[in-house]
């Protein structure tokens, strides 16, 4: 069994193909949706963890790509130097996946790596340059 994370990027004009349903039903891949940001008429993002034997996974990915959907393995990881953070919030402006948010209770910036889709926008948005990217 292989577990792998992927970022799926949907074009705005996607067909009504129920991709995740098919992955589960037709390919017997275990799908865990980690993050979704999809609205009609806009480029959409979906972060999935897929678990299946290697060969099955491969055919599943081919199927996704055949639907004109970009499918990129999430091998990169975002790191940030939490100790130096001044909690200004600038990075939260660009994080559409909700991995970077301001806590109303503590006024601190909270990083939830689970939700990160490695769009890399925070690298430039942090005025203290606290984010870096690493290959897993």
């Amino acid at each position, binding site marked *: 069994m292989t577990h792998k994370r992927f970022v799926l990027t949907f074009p705005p004009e996607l067909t009504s193909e129920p991709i995740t349903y098919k992955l589960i039903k037709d390919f017997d891949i275990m799908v865990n949706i980690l993050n979704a940001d999809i609205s009609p008429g806009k480029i959409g993002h979906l972060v999935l963890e897929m678990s299946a034997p290697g060969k099955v996974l491969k055919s599943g990915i081919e199927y996704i790509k055949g639907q004109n959907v970009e499918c990129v393995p999430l091998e990169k990881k975002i790191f940030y130097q939490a100790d130096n953070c001044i*909690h200004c919030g*600038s990075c939260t402006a660009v994080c559409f996946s909700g991995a970077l948010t301001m806590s*109303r209770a503590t006024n601190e910036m909270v990083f939830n790596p689970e939700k990160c889709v490695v769009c890399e*926008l925070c690298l430039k*948005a942090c005025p*203290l340059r606290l984010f870096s990217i690493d290959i897993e």
Partner: protein
Amino acid sequence: MSKRKSIDEINEKIRAGKAVVVTAEEVSAMGKAMSPSEVLDRVDVVTTATFGPMCSSGAFINFGHPTPPIRMEKITLNNVPVFGGIAAVDAYIGATEVANPHDTYGGAHVIEDLIAGKDVTLHATAKGTDCYPGTEVRTVINKEKINEFIMFNPRNAYQNYNVAVNTTKKIKYTYMGTLLPGLGNANYSTSGELSPLLNDPELRTIGLGTRIFLGGTTGYVAWNGTQFNTGKPLNNFGIPVGNAATIAVIGDAKAMNPRFIKAAYFEKYGVTMFVGIGIPIPVLDEDLARRVMIRNSQIETNIIDYGSGGFEILGKTNYKSLFSGEINLNGKKIRTAPLSSLKVAKEIAALLREEILGGRFFLTEPVALFPKTTGLNKLEINI
């Protein structure tokens, strides 16, 4: 005639350990259940604070003379040019200065490094004069080795500030942070009801000589800030909508703390500096009590398009909505993000309260008040 207190009376109470000091957020919360006259009775001082990027900042430095003495003309610190067009070994480090247009290390970083006690490389050249024969020096300095190191910021603590959005189809990198296309986000940069000049909007108690918290130590208001503008329209709560008053501040940079002075770089814009400022507001009468009770929902500001270059006003919002994480612009919901740190601002307001309660910080009467009617000139292009 309603009750009044004087600054002397409040200082007496501070000395006696009897002053009641609360933060501007606390007094805003109290204000929900109390009248201005009750707040005047209960509270003596309200502490306000902000910690945001303030480009119009810098520091004077006196290096001391080498042997033979030199009249420094072209000067760099860690390769960042600093202004040497004043006396022989005096200079001014501008926060936004860089060696090359796209550098991410600049004057603010030099200032932060010096405050942190780090070594910085000084290089200076001169033509050499009869009285100052030296023509070049290269040496390592730090804050212990130099003479004065005085922060002087010509424009800080803007009273209110625009909210920035981007209506274009392209991502924009601005001094208001990264703005996503198609109104993808809205960035704001004040500490709202905690912000100093919003708690005394007519600057009745903040003037020339006002003692403040600056970068972790005691500082002073030195003048009105540049682009000081009293001409902005007021809302129903007496708050100017948009960028209005500012202050120039001064303080001993050697005594500052890098937690409250932070160098920063805004992508494709440049280097700037986060400055921590705290100002105590004495509650002298009912009018001031009413002012310090101001709440986020009552502080409004303009939503401006920073994408198209025209700085068009698209709408209005208030800080309650901005802090909630979402504003509404003509029916469209837009995610908001701050640029100034409310967390550190709260820390400063609490610190200043402790200093006052501990009898280590006393309030000052302004030596002079700031102009009441100023507007802004545009730069005329005439050749």
